[in-house]
C-alpha cells in the first residue's frame, strides 16, 4: 500500500488529519493545474478548494488500484472545466498584465512577456487540446496517466497533445516568437 492509499484508509477510519496531509501534499500541483486551465489566480484558488472538497466528498468513487493523484487530477480538471463553462467568456482573462510589473530588468520583462503570450496561447486552445497539453507538457504526466485523467484512449491523448502544441507554436510564431534551441 502506498502513502496515499494509507492516508485515504486513515481518512475512511475517521482520522480527519489525513485530509490535511493529503491537501498539503497536492495543493501546489492542483493550484498550478488550475492556473493553467483558468489563467487567473482567484479562479485557481476557488477551483483548488472545490476540487479537494469534491474529492473527499466522493472518496468512495476512488479505486485503490489506480493512483490517487490521477484521480485527483481528473476531479480538478472537471472542476476547472465546469467553473469555466459557468463563467461569462468575456470575463475569462489572464489577470497578470504586463504593465503590472514595475522595476523589473529588461530580460525579466522579455521573459515575462513571453510567458504572458504562452499562457494566452494556451487559453485559446479547445478544452481537450488544452487539457492534454497542460497535463503532458506542464505537469509531466505520461500518455497513459493523461489518458486516465482525461478518460480517453492513449491515441486520443496523443492527437489532442500534438494538435494543441502545433497550434501554440503557430499562435506564438504569429506574434513573433520563435523557439530555436
Amino acid at each position, binding site marked *: 500500500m502506498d502513502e496515499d492509499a494509507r492516508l485515504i484508509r486513515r481518512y475512511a477510519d475517521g482520522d*480527519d488529519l489525513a485530509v490535511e496531509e493529503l*491537501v*498539503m501534499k497536492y495543493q501546489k500541483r492542483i*493550484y498550478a493545474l488550475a492556473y493553467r486551465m483558468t489563467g487567473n*489566480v482567484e479562479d485557481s484558488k476557488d477551483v483548488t478548494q472545490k476540487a479537494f472538497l469534491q474529492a473527499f466528498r466522493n472518496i468512495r468513487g476512488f479505486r485503490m488500484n489506480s493512483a490517487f493523484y490521477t484521480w485527483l487530477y481528473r476531479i480538478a480538471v472537471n472542476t476547472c472545466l465546469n467553473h469555466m463553462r459557468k463563467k461569462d467568456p468575456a470575463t475569462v482573462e489572464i489577470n497578470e498584465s504586463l504593465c503590472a510589473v514595475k522595476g523589473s530588468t529588461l530580460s525579466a520583462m522579455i521573459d515575462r512577456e513571453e510567458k504572458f503570450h504562452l499562457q494566452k496561447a494556451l487559453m485559446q486552445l479547445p478544452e481537450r487540446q488544452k487539457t492534454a497539453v497542460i497535463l503532458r507538457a*506542464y505537469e509531466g504526466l505520461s500518455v497513459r496517466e493523461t489518458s486516465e485523467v482525461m478518460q480517453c484512449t492513449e491515441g486520443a491523448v*496523443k492527437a489532442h497533445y500534438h494538435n494543441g*502544441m502545433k497550434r501554440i507554436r503557430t499562435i506564438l510564431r504569429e506574434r513573433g516568437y520563435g523557439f*530555436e*534551441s
Partner: protein
Amino acid sequence: MDLSHDEIKDRLPGYRGKASMPEDVSEHLDTCPECSEEFSLLASMRNDHPPEPDGMFFETLPQRVSALVQEKKKKKFFGVIPRFALVAMLVAALTAGYIYNIMKMPGADELYAFSDPFSDGDYDLGALTPDDVPSIAGDPDLEEAGVYPDEDSFLRDLASLSPGEIDRLYEKLRIKGGNGGVL
C-alpha cells in the same frame, strides 16, 4: 519518417535536458528543427511557474478543507433525521387512520361523538347569555375573543365569528364548566 517524428515528440515531455535523453532522440533533435523547436517550447513551459496566490492560501487551505469536509459529514448525519421523521409521520398517519377506521366500525353513534357540535344541532347559540361574558372577557388564552369592556362589544364580535371560531369558543365554554348551558 513521419511516424518516428511524432513518436519523438510524444517522448519529449519526459526529458528535462538533452543530457537525459537517449542518443537516438538527441541525434534526431540535432537534425530536425521542428522537434528541436518543440523541445525549446517545452522548456519554456516548464520554466513558467504560476504566480503565487496571495495571503496565506497554502498555509490555511489544508485546515479549511478539513473543516468543510467535517462540516459536511455532520450535515449528512443530521440530514438523515428529517427523512426519518417524515417516514415516522407517514407510518403514524397510516396507523391513526387504521385505528380511526376500527373505532368507527361499531356504528354511527360513536362517530357523532367526534363530529362538529354546531352542525349536529346540540349547540344553541341563542342560549348564550350575558353571564357567559365574564368567563371570556379578560381571558388571555382566548385570543379570538380578546378583552371586552362591555357586553355589546362582546355580542357584536360573537355575531361575526366564523364557524371554526365558534367551535373553539364552544370548547372553551365547555372546559370552563358549561357556562351558557350549551351542554
